């Protein structure tokens, strides 16, 4: 019978081989004997695997992608079993050295951003997945820390350069730092190196003591994310005084490192890697107040969540992550560093922060500007308006009843799927913030009973529509059929209509007139009624030869219809008294081209261009050769095009517009400014010309009664609807007042 181990946390039985409880993920085995050196926790991913960070995070700078890739390639072959358990007090070893960094609790609750975790191969797991946090912290501390390759190779100038160049650091600092990195180490700097190493030696005397019992020397310029990348739970809140000035210059001198002149024998707990440690004089101390609150304030120690390299294919509870770190191959300069022989409390003042650190190791620290720049930026709090919008209750569709599921504002600041070329730190934080907020709101909404009020759907009111349609149709049909003359014409003729009539009357006899038919079949009724009297007046008095043209595909057909119906009484014959030039393609461009050279434009644009040469319009080669241009249009756009694009070519040729009632008022300014000779707009405007044309052909008179009845019906309908709505409002509010 197989033995089982009861979980001290949940009481469930587990297999004794399991390091964690399979139910609650509580650590079952003590840390000091849980490591199985034969186990290979990390499987190297194939070279062509695209699960690396580089393949998942397109926004990452190259050096970070490369770092993640190199981790996945390099870490697995170099994994070694730990030399000895971390609990044993043994001779100085690199593992112990790094393990000493682990027992200081996290001074702040900042978590590793997802993008960083993916890059460096760590994976944040929710509490409980990877075991209790305390255990995980201990495990990390006692079994060594994971050191990314770009940290392992401090002597690589390329890596160093990339790191700094890709970081979103102030340019001045980066430039200066780069100059220092490339300029070699001066003698003064060498002396600083040796002085620093001597201090390290003195510090190393305390290495035999259990790391958890040692306070960690204050770390000054270590960014939190770097610390967490290494699994370090060091104190980042240490003060700065003197710390920056005492940082070793050898960390930035790659040449010296390669020569082995500055071989480090000890690295203080939580000390930052050489690449990430800027030279103190080069880095300006940022304002403490500008830091995020979680950094600036000494937070209570928080357990570090267990982490696992992202490139591992095993789940977190399948192996001990810390063992991986412990088994990592350490660089020589780290492996040879002896354990500190004295506790950190007795570290030299240059190593340990002075007053604030002695009083409390959780003193806020001024991070260098370049570290600040690489950190996820302070979260931008959403404004109250946005929060209010985000919390909107969905009232339609499949999301009915859910709150805050869809963003309420356009994605100016929050694109849905398209990455923006902004600074990555801002976006990542904002996205996470938004998603977290949405998730919280969704979860809160799930537990909160909400009274879902169904929206008042307007819904199609077929009855109303049918009633309106029936009343209008019947009444207007009766008016048209009755041919009554109940409603008289207006007594006054609009000025623009009168001017149009005068313009037509000013056309010389037998002259050439251009007629533009720019209206759609839908408005044939109105346009023919509006234009008939004016054109009839022209044909009756002056007998001009006409050229018909249209910028609408159906315009030429409508022109033929107009000539055969509206002014049929004049008996104009196609090909002799008028010519249909057809469809002028190109809209505005076609009109401009036609105005510039009518014959050339037509030959290029219309298959009917040959009609120009048929002899109907002899001597008319330019637009100004026409005696008048009359544009029949139902749209503002078309009228404006003919007014503006033909202004120069037509010269002094009168331009008369016949417009629909909707386009007419918009074109009036052109008449008032003198660009148009006259305008006949709608039935109201056409009444005058018909009166002046002896009531011929009578289209306006035929429609006038029905037109007026329609106007009154519209007026009454709006009035009734307004009164009904007001009464409804009144009746709804009256009970409340009572």
């Amino acid at each position: 019978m197989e033995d089982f181990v009861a979980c001290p946390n949940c009481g469930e039985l587990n297999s004794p081989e399991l390091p964690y409880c399979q139910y609650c993920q509580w650590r079952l085995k003590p840390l000091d004997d849980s490591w199985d050196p034969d186990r290979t926790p990390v499987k190297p991913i194939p070279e062509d695997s695209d699960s690396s960070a580089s393949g998942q995070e397109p926004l990452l700078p190259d050096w970070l992608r490369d770092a993640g890739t190199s981790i996945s390639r390099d870490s697995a072959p170099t994994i070694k079993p730990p030399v000895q358990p971390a609990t044993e007090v043994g001779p100085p070893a690199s593992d112990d050295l790094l393990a000493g960094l682990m027992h200081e609790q996290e001074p702040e609750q900042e978590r590793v951003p997802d993008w960083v975790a993916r890059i460096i191969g760590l994976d944040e797991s929710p509490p409980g997945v990877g075991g209790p946090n305390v255990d995980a912290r201990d495990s990390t501390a006692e079994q060594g820390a994971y050191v990314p390759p770009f940290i392992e190779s401090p002597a690589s100038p390329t890596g160093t350069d990339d790191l700094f160049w890709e970081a979103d650091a102030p340019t001045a600092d980066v430039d200066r730092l780069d100059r220092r990195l490339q300029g070699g180490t001066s003698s003064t700097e060498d002396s600083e190196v040796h002085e620093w190493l001597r201090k390290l030696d003195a510090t190393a005397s305390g290495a035999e003591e259990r790391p958890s019992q040692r306070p960690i020397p204050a770390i000054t310029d270590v960014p939190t994310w770097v610390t967490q990348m290494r699994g370090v739970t060091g104190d980042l809140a240490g003060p700065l005084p003197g710390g920056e000035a005492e940082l070793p210059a050898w960390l930035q001198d790659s040449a010296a490192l390669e020569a082995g002149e500055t071989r480090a024998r000890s690295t203080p707990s939580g000390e930052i890697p050489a690449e990430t440690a800027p030279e103190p004089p080069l880095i300006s101390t940022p304002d403490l107040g500008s830091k995020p609150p979680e950094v600036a304030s000494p937070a209570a120690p928080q357990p570090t969540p267990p982490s696992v390299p992202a490139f591992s294919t095993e789940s977190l509870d399948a192996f001990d992550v810390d063992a991986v770190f412990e088994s990592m191959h350490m660089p020589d300069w780290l492996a040879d560093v002896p354990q500190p022989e004295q506790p950190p409390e007795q570290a030299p003042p240059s190593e340990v922060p002075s007053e604030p650190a002695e009083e409390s190791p959780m003193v806020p620290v001024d991070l260098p500007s370049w570290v600040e720049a690489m950190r996820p930026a302070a979260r931008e709090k959403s404004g109250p308006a946005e929060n209010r919008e985000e919390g909107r209750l969905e009232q339609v569709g499949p999301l009915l009843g859910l709150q805050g599921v869809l963003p309420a504002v356009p994605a100016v600041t929050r694109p849905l799927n398209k990455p923006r070329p902004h600074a990555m730190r801002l976006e990542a934080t904002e996205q996470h913030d938004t998603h977290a907020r949405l998730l919280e709101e969704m979860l809160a909404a799930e537990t909160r009973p909400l009274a879902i009020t169904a929206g008042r759907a307007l819904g199609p009111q077929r009855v109303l529509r049918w009633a309106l349609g029936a009343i209008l149709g019947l009444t207007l049909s009766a008016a048209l059929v009755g041919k009554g003359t109940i409603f008289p014409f207006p007594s006054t003729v609009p000025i623009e209509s009168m001017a149009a009539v005068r313009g037509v009357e000013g056309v010389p006899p037998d002259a050439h007139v251009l007629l533009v038919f720019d209206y759609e079949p839908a408005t044939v009724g109105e346009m023919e009624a509006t234009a008939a009297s004016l054109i009839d007046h022209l044909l009756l008095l002056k007998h001009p030869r006409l050229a018909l043209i249209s910028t609408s595909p159906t315009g030429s057909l409508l022109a033929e219809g107009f000539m055969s119906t509206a002014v049929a009484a004049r008996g104009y014959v196609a090909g002799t008294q008028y010519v249909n030039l057809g469809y002028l393609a190109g809209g505005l461009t076609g009109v401009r081209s036609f105005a510039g050279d009518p014959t050339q434009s037509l030959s290029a644009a219309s298959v009917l261009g040959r009609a120009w040469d048929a002899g109907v319009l002899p001597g008319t080669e330019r637009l100004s050769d026409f005696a008048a241009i009359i544009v029949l249009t139902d749209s503002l756009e078309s009228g404006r095009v003919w007014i503006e694009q033909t202004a120069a070519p037509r010269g002094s040729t009168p331009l008369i517009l016949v417009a629909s009632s909707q386009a007419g008022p918009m074109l009036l300014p052109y008449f008032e400014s003198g660009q148009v000779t006259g305008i006949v707009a709608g039935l109201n405007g056409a009444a005058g010309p018909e009166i002046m044309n002896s009531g011929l052909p009578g289209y306006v008179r035929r429609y006038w009664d029905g037109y007026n009845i329609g106007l009154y019906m519209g007026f009454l309908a709006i009035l009734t609807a307004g009164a009904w709505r007001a009464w409804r409002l009144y009746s709804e509010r009256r009970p409340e007042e009572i």
Partner: protein
Amino acid sequence: MTGWVGLGALLFSTVLLIAIARLRRPSAARFRPISGLTSLYRAFGHSVEGGTRLIIALGGPSLLSRSAGPALAGLRLLKEIAQRGTGSDLPPLAVSGEPSLALLSQDTLHAGYRAIGAPEFFQPVTGRVAGLTPFSSSAATMPMISDEQASVAALIGHFGVESALLAEAAERSNVVLIGATDDPAAQAVLYATSTDPLVGEELFAAPAYFAGGAMPLASLTVQDVLRWIIIAVVLLGAALKLLQII
């Protein structure tokens, strides 16, 4: 004289546009709320979530006409929507009343599929010509609103009063209709009949509201600058006229 003033305004606008696009951070832009665009944005989200279709009607102006501006703005909006909505169960449908516009809408939709890495799923009929006259185009679009399982219809481009037919068809099918046109008469019609109208130049703000970007935002800024200049000139002219100086 007028021509040179126009040329100067053109050059000034171009320089200002480029300068603002280069110098100003897009994130610094602040928008006034436009209910029509907010409604369109939310309705688009609903359509994607609900697996229904969004219909964008681009109107019927020729690209060679003056109304090409609204049509281009509609195409720009279509681009943004295409990139986000092509992954939906029912991808967006672009309806045009002019052939060249239909070609461009097809190209835009295709680009949306390319952007999500699935160009093979693009169907040319999702960018279609409905008709060659305004009313025939509207008549052909009306059944699309009811038959294509649409939940949102956006009229972005040049439309006339025939847009009221589309609005009524949308209401009958419980479809949210957002109307934006450059025609004042059609704006009046859409104000009364659409779910949410966009008035005046608000339709040019749609791409910037949807996607941001340096150039659309700079464009809006330049519009504001030019508008203030025109206001100043109009007021100055009125004052000079009142004083009988001119």
